[in-house]
């Protein structure tokens, strides 16, 4: 029996909190934001119907504090909690606590999160369900000699990755035995600090693979569908930068096979909710199960644009115990969607985070453009959270239209006050290998080694120089007028006024 949700606490911040609040508003569900001391005036707080303070800026004191979040949900009588992505989204303990407190956790059941969150168990499940996997095994970080032996037997290059978590944290590619030990320690330490679990897994590193993932939706009544794939190969340090759907290399036949594989592991793990089954696809188009993300993905909008299905609303409907309102045959794919993740990072300096107050924020619009943004003019980007500040997603009737639309939209975007990756995305949209669809997860390091990006074109620098000269000329004229330092000995008030009016005219103020 379906039970309507009336109030949702969103245990997140930034663009994904805004995304979920928008869905709530359209469903007439009361939205509740929570915020840290760094987010008192953040967009998600301003947009939500209600908002409650939950602690200090560092996430363990606020967005990761289960007690405070549960307490707030109970105090304001929220029926449900949407965790977004990151923070508590894939925390089985938190999902279980919600269940104990009779608060609906908008995500898969705790057991499913637990099973699939452990890469070893998930891999085992995938093997049992008949999915192809990449050769590999768990290693003991303490026994570095044994680990090295195992790495050698798999054969370099190998990939070390955290058993808990994802998103590129606690992940290292090791090309040779010499670098193995340090990488192992770094990966494990990063995993421990990010997920509280230092265990790592070792697997064969595929050369020039593609990262392709399938979106799934499963209700509590045994209905499960996939919503096609997302191509996520454009990555830097295992962090996705650009995603699209369909994949430029996808065929209907391969989509059918990968979709079936995705639904097999979903069924094997009694999956309920929205989820993503990630695969590596090698150069001969063989695919290997990678992991299941038991949450809404950052890149979910590309799927929404090609299927016209609202994934957040579907998540909520599933959490309300509703049946899916469509079957696999009802799902059609139309056109092509691309997403660029816009981050407060400086690509010219190796993508170091850039912090500051956003000024002059102007988002593009017009046909086929969607922005999921978590900031506006006056917002502050702090060191505490993920540097992703907005996602720019476009739809086109085909890939070529989508790329030219993305180019147009990136050109319209304005933001000042800090460095962003917008210019970098503009470069990629002009890159021949990107345009031809011929790329792998090595795209960034192959195309832009040492982060050497083209700077402004000569013509643009000349334009800037002229602009600066005109500006200085105008200011100097204006200062002369204001100070009365005119070449003429005396200027009557009236003629001064008259000249200022003229000046206003030529500067275009009316």
């Amino acid at each position, binding site marked *: 029996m379906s039970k309507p949700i009336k109030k949702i606490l969103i245990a997140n911040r930034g663009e994904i909190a805004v995304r979920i609040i928008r869905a709530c508003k359209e469903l007439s569900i009361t939205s509740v934001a929570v915020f840290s001391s760094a987010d008192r005036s953040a967009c998600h707080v301003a947009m939500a119907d209600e908002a409650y303070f939950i602690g200090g800026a560092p996430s363990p004191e606020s967005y990761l504090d289960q007690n405070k979040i549960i307490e707030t949900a109970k105090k304001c009588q929220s029926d449900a909690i949407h965790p977004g992505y990151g923070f508590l989204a894939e925390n089985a303990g938190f999902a279980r606590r919600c269940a104990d407190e009779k608060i609906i956790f908008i995500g898969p059941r705790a057991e499913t999160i637990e099973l699939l969150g452990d890469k070893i168990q998930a891999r085992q499940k995938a093997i049992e369900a008949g999915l192809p996997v990449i050769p590999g095994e768990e290693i003991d970080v303490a026994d570095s000699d044994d680990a090295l032996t195992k790495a050698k037997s798999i054969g370099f290059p190998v990939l070390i990755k955290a058993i808990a978590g994802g998103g590129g*944290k606690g992940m290292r590619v090791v090309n040779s035995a010499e670098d193995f030990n*340090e990488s192992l320690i*770094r990966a494990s*330490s*990063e995993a421990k*600090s*990010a997920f509280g679990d230092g265990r790592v897994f070792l697997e064969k590193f595929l050369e020039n693979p593609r990262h392709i993932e399938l979106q799934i939706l499963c209700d509590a009544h045994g209905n499960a569908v996939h919503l096609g794939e997302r191509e996520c190969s454009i990555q830097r*340090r295992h962090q996705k930068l650009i995603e699209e759907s369909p994949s430029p290399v996808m065929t209907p036949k391969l989509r059918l096979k990968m979709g079936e594989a995705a639904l097999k592991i979903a069924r094997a793990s009694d999956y309920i909710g929205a989820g993503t089954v990630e695969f590596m696809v090698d150069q001969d188009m063989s695919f290997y199960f990678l992991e299941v993300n038991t949450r809404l993905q950052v890149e979910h909008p590309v799927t929404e644009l090609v299927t016209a299905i609202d994934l957040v609303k579907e998540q909520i409907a599933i959490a309300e115990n509703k049946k899916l309102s469509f079957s696999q045959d009802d799902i059609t794919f139309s056109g092509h969607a691309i997403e660029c993740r816009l981050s407060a990072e400086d690509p010219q*300096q*190796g993508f*170091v*985070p*850039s*912090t500051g107050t956003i000024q*002059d924020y102007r988002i593009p619009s017009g046909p086929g453009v969607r922005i999921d943004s978590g900031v506006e003019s006056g917002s502050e980007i702090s*060191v*505490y*959270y*993920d*540097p992703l500040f907005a996602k720019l997603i476009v739809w086109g009737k085909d890939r070529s239209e989508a790329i030219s639309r993305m180019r147009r939209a*990136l*050109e*319209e*975007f*304005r933001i*000042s006050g800090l460095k962003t990756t*917008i*210019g970098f995305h*503009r470069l990629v949209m002009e890159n021949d290998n990107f345009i031809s669809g011929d790329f792998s997860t090595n795209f960034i390091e192959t195309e832009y080694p040492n982060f050497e990006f083209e*700077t*402004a074109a*000569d013509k*643009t*620098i*000349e*334009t*800037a*120089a*002229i*602009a*600066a*000269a*005109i*500006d*200085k*000329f*105008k200011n*100097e*004229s204006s200062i002369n007028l204001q100070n009365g330092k005119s070449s003429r000995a005396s200027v009557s008030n009236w003629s001064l006024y008259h000249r200022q009016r003229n000046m206003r*005219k*030529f*500067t*275009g*103020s009316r």
Partner: protein
Amino acid sequence: MAHYLVRSNGKEFDIVIEKSGDSFHAVVNGRKYFVQSASCGRSKSVMLIDGSSHEISIKTNGYDNSRLVTVGPVEVELEIDNFRLAQLKKAAGNGSGKAASKEIKAPMPGLILEVKVSSGEKVEPGQLILVIEAMKMENAVKSSAAAVVKNIAVSKGQSVEKGDLLIEFE
């Protein structure tokens, strides 16, 4: 009429600006352009150079001669001087050619996770010096050349701002 020297990214522009009715003539390294410029809001303007349209925003670094000029979506940093002043500066020959880096500054704000060298230690190019955590990522800071560590200005667990001194070499 005014005469400026603009420098950006190793390029020099000798620019003469002359008013012409509501508009301007700009002679840039000997080439003449017709320029129209209209402001829109506080810091924005629309500039037409021989009809080519550009959305311009200019930020001044306080009192000095450096500008951050945004042309459409592209930021250009430059320096502008009155031409005669620039010539004088050049004649005075204030030294160019940067000295080799004798220090490491924080490339981003963050938390020092580990310091892997000690004072007096000789380091090789590419050697891991320290690890900074920023936005949940660990970032390795490595030496760019062989050097001897003179002073370590930070310690494990310390928060640093971008540009803070981390390590000095001899």
